[in-house]
């Protein structure tokens, strides 16, 4: 808006002089005593601001105060002294992790690569599955039959991570003198897909199988539930669109290509971008519950690395430095993905 002189000054006929307009006087006052004004507003509306207090306190105490402890990654770790009294060590931990040349730095790079690869494979194999499922659900015209299928596929989602990983552990467990191997290992060995010795040693003890187990259990657990959002987009397509395509002679594939895909593309893009944004924020619980010393080569991710050295071990500074690097890159990815989403589709995620 363009400012006009009349907004600020008023010509006073009686005295023949200009004087400040009363509204501008209020504006000036607010500007001059900004914090006083803020205080008055808050006091007048104190109930509303009181409601904010518990939430702010909770987030401050248990989300923001930990960030202060990040200072520990620049300081010499000390079990006794609080972080404020520790001596500065500069970027030595970061340097050691990145270019240290010892086992610690090799393990860190391995963990970073595993973090990225687990997410990336999840993107390649885990992401399309819910979309395919949603397309299949759409083929089932009977509501009852569809509900049955949907309920069955959502079922694994209702287990906690601990129960899910326990079940997976039992299904592919190793054979011993007293008990045989898990039923899935048995099946794979009987089909001849893996050798009996490998199956008997326990698939979770074999680094070659960790990624597949992680992805397959992820699909088993989440694909049905994740398909809800895509299915909602598909049933929103008007039946007339299909009819028009059929009249134009479109086969099933052509209908998929020219009717369904364009309609659900925006949902796919949004979901994909969210997925890319959280590429480095991999859930540590599942890895922690599935991995063991034999599978560190493929299973160790940055947060489990930090858990092992910082919580179970005593290298708190190094562990938090490692995770901080991971989380900063992760944050940049989220913000980048969100910016792209906003530019591309006018829908931002946050």
């Amino acid at each position, binding site marked *: 808006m363009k400012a006009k002189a009349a907004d600020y000054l008023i010509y006073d006929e009686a005295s023949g002089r200009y004087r400040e307009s009363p509204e501008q006087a209020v504006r000036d006052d607010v500007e001059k005593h900004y914090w006083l004004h*803020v205080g008055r507003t808050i006091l007048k509306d104190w*109930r*509303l601001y009181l*409601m*904010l207090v*518990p*939430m702010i306190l909770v*987030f401050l*105490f*248990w*989300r923001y105060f930990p960030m202060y*402890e990040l200072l*520990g990654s620049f300081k010499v770790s000390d079990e006794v002294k609080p972080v404020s009294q520790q001596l500065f060590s500069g970027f030595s931990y970061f340097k050691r992790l990145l270019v240290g040349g010892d086992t610690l730095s090799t393990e860190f790079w391995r963990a970073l690569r595993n973090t990225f690869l687990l997410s990336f494979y999840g993107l390649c194999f885990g992401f399309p599955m819910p979309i395919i*499922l949603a397309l*299949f659900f759409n*083929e*089932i015209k009977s509501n009852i039959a569809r509900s049955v*299928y949907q309920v*069955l*596929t*959502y*079922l*694994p989602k*209702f*287990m*906690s991570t*601990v*129960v899910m990983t*326990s*079940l997976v552990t*039992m299904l592919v*467990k190793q054979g*011993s003198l*007293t*008990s*045989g191997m898990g*039923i899935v290992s048995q099946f794979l060995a009987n089909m001849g897909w893996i050798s009996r010795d490998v199956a008997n040693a326990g698939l979770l003890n074999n680094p070659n199988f960790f990624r597949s187990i992680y992805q397959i259990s992820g699909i*088993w657990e989440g*694909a*049905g*539930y994740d398909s809800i959002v895509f299915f909602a987009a598909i049933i929103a397509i008007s039946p007339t669109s299909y009819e028009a395509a059929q009249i134009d*002679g479109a*086969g*099933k594939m052509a209908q998929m290509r020219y009717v369904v895909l364009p309609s659900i593309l925006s*949902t796919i893009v*949004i979901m994909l971008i969210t997925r890319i944004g959280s590429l480095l924020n991999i859930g*540590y*619980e599942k890895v922690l519950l599935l991995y063991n010393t034999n599978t560190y080569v493929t299973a160790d991710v940055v947060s489990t690395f*930090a858990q092992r050295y910082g*919580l179970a071990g005593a290298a*708190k500074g190094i*562990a*938090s430095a490692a995770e*901080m690097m*991971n*989380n900063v890159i*992760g*944050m940049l990815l*989220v913000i980048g993905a969100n910016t792209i989403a906003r530019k591309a589709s006018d829908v931002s*995620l946050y």
Partner: protein
Amino acid sequence: MKRKLEVSELIFKILSYTLLTVFALCCLYPFVYAVSAAISGRAAVDYGEIVLLPKNIQFDAFRRMFNDNMFWNSYSNTLFLTLYGTLWALGYSILGAYALSKRRLLFRKFFNFFLVFTMWFSAGLVPQYLNYLDTKEIFNAIGIVDDKWLVVIAMGMAAMNIILLRNAFEGVPSEIEEAAIVDGASEFQVLSQVYIPMSKSTIATVALFFGISRWNGYFWARQMISNANEHPLQVFIRLKLEQFTDPEAMAGWNEVYASDSVIYALIVCSIVPILIIYPFIQKYFAKGVNVGGVKE
């Protein structure tokens, strides 16, 4: 031309029915297998003879579970954490979300950023752990020695849930609120009499999210709860799994049921209550995904 159309559609239909059936059976099978393995005789489980149906049925593995006081104890601990944790998180989330939904709130942008930033960046496990240790000291100093309360109060906050609530509150028409204010309603009355009843389904969804994350919570409960009597169910299951899958510890096992049956029984016992309430919460679950998909 017409015939060709039908063929391609028919093929796709057959394909989708087949693959869906296969996938649905894959989803169902582990549960059926777990039940069968839990109630089968020792030899059948140990030699891997169970494929689908149980053999030499026994219920001793379940009986062992039900006679274990620690099992019931962990169940009641989980119920405690879920109930109080959900109420606490839902309480401050509703209050905060209501304040954030008001356009007249000063520094609204700042408060929103304050929340959203916690979704982008987390300090990580070690700093959080050190922070929880400090919190534990404070709690002990003021006389709360149960670690359960630490888990209830200090964990499980989710900025996303607050944003969902805020969006729902923003959708309430301002005319209704104005009418209530004209009738003399105070701020808290407006919230409890107008906003909460009008966004019931979102609140139910968010409560469900909080409840599920509490029910499933494992890592921090294991880290921070030192007393074994206060362990929730998830920690109990995990500890049992670690104990029972250790071949050396199980070498002297001489019961009529296999050691694996105990784990399967435990898994079944932890899933059954969820299956019972599943029909009641399913619609909120489905709704949550759609709300969570695209936001303002």
